[in-house]
């Protein structure tokens, strides 16, 4: 020990001082138990063991991996794989079950809803919106206005093969371009647009001969959209009395569609997604509330 050290005892507490003094204040030496020190040493040894066993030191372009080869990334991947395997198993059950069975079986419904919600966000939301409210040209999947039918089977059919998608099984129906192709003249188109609008709750423009419009409708449109304007799901002819139109509900929008028809495309999903996911999507979309 240091030379010249003289043991100094604090006269009040009777405890030896450490010899440190600050403006007359002296630090007492109440020694810590030795085991405390040994535990500290043990933690150091433990830390060194940890370096050997687990990833620890960063190197220039990598790190010391440790003898156990433990990696959080590998662990996460393994957990992901395990989850996917479990999912595949339920997916198989889903493929073998009918859509009605899926909807009425609690465990299958819960899986299909979760799976469907995720798949909808990934694949459908870009056009139909995250809330499935659609947009001009993209149908609203929340309401009860279905162009090709809103039953579980019909939704599933549409999802699998699409509309005008080019798939062999695709739903197909086309609105002719009556104006562009010269089937109706401008006057007739104005008349029929006003007639259809008036039956769908739109105020017709002034001075239009609605009776003439009705005549044009009966001769050109009723074959698909029906005498009552309620449409025909078999050919995808929309209900013209509905409170929302795919391409906009106004006299101008109707004129535009009759003159130069737009026929949007819904892709076929059967070639892109696995059958369980397509089924989940059908159940999910049906469960949004508009399902029939």
């Amino acid at each position: 020990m240091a030379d010249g050290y003289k043991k100094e005892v604090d006269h009040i507490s009777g405890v030896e001082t450490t010899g440190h003094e600050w403006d007359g204040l002296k630090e007492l030496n109440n020694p810590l138990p030795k085991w405390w020190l040994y535990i500290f040493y043990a933690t150091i040894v433990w830390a060194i063991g940890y370096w050997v066993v687990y990833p620890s030191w960063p190197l220039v372009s990598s790190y010391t991996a440790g003898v156990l080869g433990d990696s959080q990334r590998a662990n996460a991947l393994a957990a992901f794989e395990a989850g996917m395997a479990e999912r595949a198993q339920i997916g198989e059950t889903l493929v073998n079950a009918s859509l009605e069975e899926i909807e009425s079986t609690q465990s299958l419904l819960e899986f299909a809803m979760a799976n469907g919600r995720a798949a909808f966000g990934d694949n459908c939301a870009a056009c139909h919106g995250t809330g499935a409210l659609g947009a001009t040209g993209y149908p609203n999947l929340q309401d009860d206005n279905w162009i090709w039918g809103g039953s579980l089977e019909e939704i599933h059919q549409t999802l699998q093969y699409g509309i005008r998608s080019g798939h062999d099984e695709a739903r197909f129906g086309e609105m002719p371009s009556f104006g562009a192709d010269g089937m109706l003249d401008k006057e007739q188109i104005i008349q029929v647009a006003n007639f259809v609008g008036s039956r769908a709750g739109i105020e017709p423009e002034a001075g239009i001969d609605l009776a003439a419009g009705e005549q044009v409708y009966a001769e050109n449109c009723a074959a698909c959209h029906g005498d009552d304007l309620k449409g025909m799901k078999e050919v995808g002819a929309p209900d013209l009395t509905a409170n929302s139109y795919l391409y906009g509900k106004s006299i101008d929008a109707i004129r535009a569609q009759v003159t130069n028809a737009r026929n949007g495309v819904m892709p076929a999903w059967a070639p892109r997604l696995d059958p369980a996911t397509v089924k989940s999507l059908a159940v999910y979309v049906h469960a949004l509330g508009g399902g029939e």
Partner: protein
Amino acid sequence: MDGTMRAESDPSGAGGQPDEWFASAKKIYPMAVHGTFRKIKWAVLFATLGIYYFLPFVRWDRGPDAPDQAVLIDLAGRRAYFFFIEIWPQEVYYLTGLLILAAMALFLMNAVAGRIWCGYLCPQTVWTDLFLWVERQIEGDRRERMLLDAEPWSVAKVLQKLSKHTLWLMIAWWTGGAWVLYFADAPTLVKSLATGEAPFSAYLWIGILTFTTYALAGHMREQVCIFLCPWPRIQAALTDEDALNVTYRYDRGEPRGSLKQNRKRVDEGLPAGDCIDCYQCVHACPTGVDIRNGTQLGCIQCGLCIDACDTVMDKVGKPHGLIAYDTDENIKRRMEGRETVVRMVRPRTIIYAGIIVLVGAIMAYALVTRQHEGMSVLHDRNPIYVELSDGGVRNGYTIRMLNKRLTAREFALTVEGMPEGTRIEAVGISEHVDGAPLVTVGVDTTRELRVLVFSPAAAQLDKSTPITFRLRDTASGDTATASDFFKAP
């Protein structure tokens, strides 16, 4: 620190470093005592360890769909069972209540009679006591143990030490074993532990608790109380001059001296105390403190020094109670020649007891009125409403229904606050009674459903209508409700 710096800070030259920054713990050899407090401690030891080791095997019938273990923490199933009580994770506030009760009970004990917890109930004390008993059976009492430790190693010494540590490890192992039984069906786990088929975590925890019990009760002992535990520090703030603490009555004991010395002092006409300075109180102390220095951090107030002193007082023909549960106030009063007083009812004890009663009552009320069904509702955010072709409006909700009973139950789901003709549907539920979907929720679980509410076509609706969902058990009629809103354009 080097010499130069020291010279600056301590110009007197008297400075320097002491020999020891760290001190070896002095080994303590507590002496066996007999008496009232020793008996109380044995009784408490039997009761507490008996509960700890055997409670997992107590059965409690809850029907076919629930575990029949009286006390069980089912971590995987996320349920805790305590006899007739079962709680779900979200009901962990019962645990908060228990912790408040425990803290207040500790404070109250302290205000009434010092560190009852430390001296009698603390696991560290109880297991140390048990380990000391084992040590005594094998190596003998204080004197024999000291002699044995001083002896050079011999076959006999090795055998003694070996059997002591083996017994300690067996007790420690059983302690760890009992611990894991609280987390799984005890008989099944015992069987699978014996056949080596138990989960790894069970063996791991048994190992951890075996080690801690062996280390803390066998080797660390009073070091835990003095260096690791916060309670001795808190204790100083919780005791007062009216609390009954284990006290050396210095008014009676001082001046202390051996029998011979004190007789001589009496002969000389000098005062002599009852304390014969025999050190039996110090030798009996499991933490090695001298109670005659007063209440102190190291004193766990187990009362063993009282027994030791009373035994000596019997031998020297003096009355018991030179060391006794007493208050600072009474020592002062006796020295001043005043009446002694026991004030157990004082603001401190009244407040602690009041809080205990209040929290206990709140917990009992919460437990008695605990709902066995529940519901939480989440309104669709996108879209908040949907207009339908008939002019009506639809709102979508996600509803989670809870069934805390141990049988499957059927609930009718209705909505209140909406105009006549409102329809409610739950996706996947085809059965209805009076228009209300009938939902079956399984045993002790929850079920989440998408629920749709349709307003009648002609209804005049506000932008937002407050509504209430009601879940009614079709058999018992018990209901749960949840409030939300019906949104419209």
